[in-house]
């Protein structure tokens, strides 16, 4: 009887320790995934929108099979928000970019000026589709055309000649 009691106590202790172990693993996994997610880019966080213009990109001679959508919206501060979603950036470019190259998004403004909006690259998130690429930037200038070039320097002031994707004029 005494032996049985000791065994039951041991069982209880083992169960309790196992539960504690699983609890710690769950807490650790939860907090680690939260930490890793905290650096992720939050999209569409521009608040209210007034008007939206959607432009389907035309098939260009550079990449006729390319598929992408540009949306132009106005945010709460009345700036123009440019949202781009590409189905396959590598397919769009046609070549695998080397380590030095970057895809730069440009916009032509209604004042005959061309402005760099930033870099675009394929999605890298754990749960995101890595074949897709998304981009969002805002500008005080009204865009009339959006295009992407391949550059060796991400901070170039003027677009290079290698245009890999372009919209028609809005």
């Amino acid at each position, binding site marked *: 009887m005494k032996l049985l009691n000791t065994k039951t106590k041991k069982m209880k*202790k*083992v169960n309790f*320790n196992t539960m*504690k*172990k699983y609890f*710690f*693993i769950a*807490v*650790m996994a939860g*907090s*680690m995934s*939260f*930490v890793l997610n*905290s*650096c*992720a*880019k939050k999209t569409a*966080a*521009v*608040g209210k929108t007034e008007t939206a213009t959607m432009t389907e990109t035309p098939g260009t001679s550079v990449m006729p099979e390319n598929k992408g959508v540009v949306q132009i919206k106005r*945010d*709460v*501060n*009345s*700036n123009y928000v440019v949202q781009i979603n590409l189905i396959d950036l590598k397919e769009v470019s046609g070549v695998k970019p080397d380590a030095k190259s*970057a895809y*730069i998004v440009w916009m032509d403004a209604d*004042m005959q000026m061309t402005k*760099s*909006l*930033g*870099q*675009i*690259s394929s*999605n*890298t*998130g754990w749960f995101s589709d890595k074949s897709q690429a998304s*981009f*969002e*930037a*805002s*500008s*005080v*200038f009204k865009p009339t055309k959006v295009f992407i070039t391949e550059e060796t320097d*991400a*901070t170039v002031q003027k677009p290079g000649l290698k245009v890999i994707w372009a919209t028609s004029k809005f």
Partner: protein
Amino acid sequence: MKLLSYTPTFKNISSVFLITAMMLLFNSCARKTNFQTSSVVPAARGSVKVKKDDNNNYVIKMKMTGLAEAKRLEPAKQVYVVWMEADDHSIKNLGQINSNSSLLSKTLKASFETVSPFKPIKIFITAEDKADAAYPDTQVVLSTSNF
């Protein structure tokens, strides 16, 4: 006996992991800088967060309170424009920012978000007559110190 000696070690390791993760979480990846007190709009307070996004651009987020309407300034202006000084010392117009109060609160609030491929070293706000000004006005309403 083995289990008893294993459990405290496991607990210690877990605690260290947990603390590290929590520190990382609260530290986040963003760099937060407060605006310096303004002599033009002394009631205005705000902060700027700069971090890198998945596309390797710099995300600039700004939140402000107490920024009076530009039309109430002396001399009166039309809009507030956010500017950044890049690490190559060029000045870029990031866009306009509007200050509004909500239905539930009379506090003037403003928020702004944009991305730039250029690394910002300073963010400042000027009052302008046109939102698409190419160069900032000489009178700076609010400014951060250099990052």
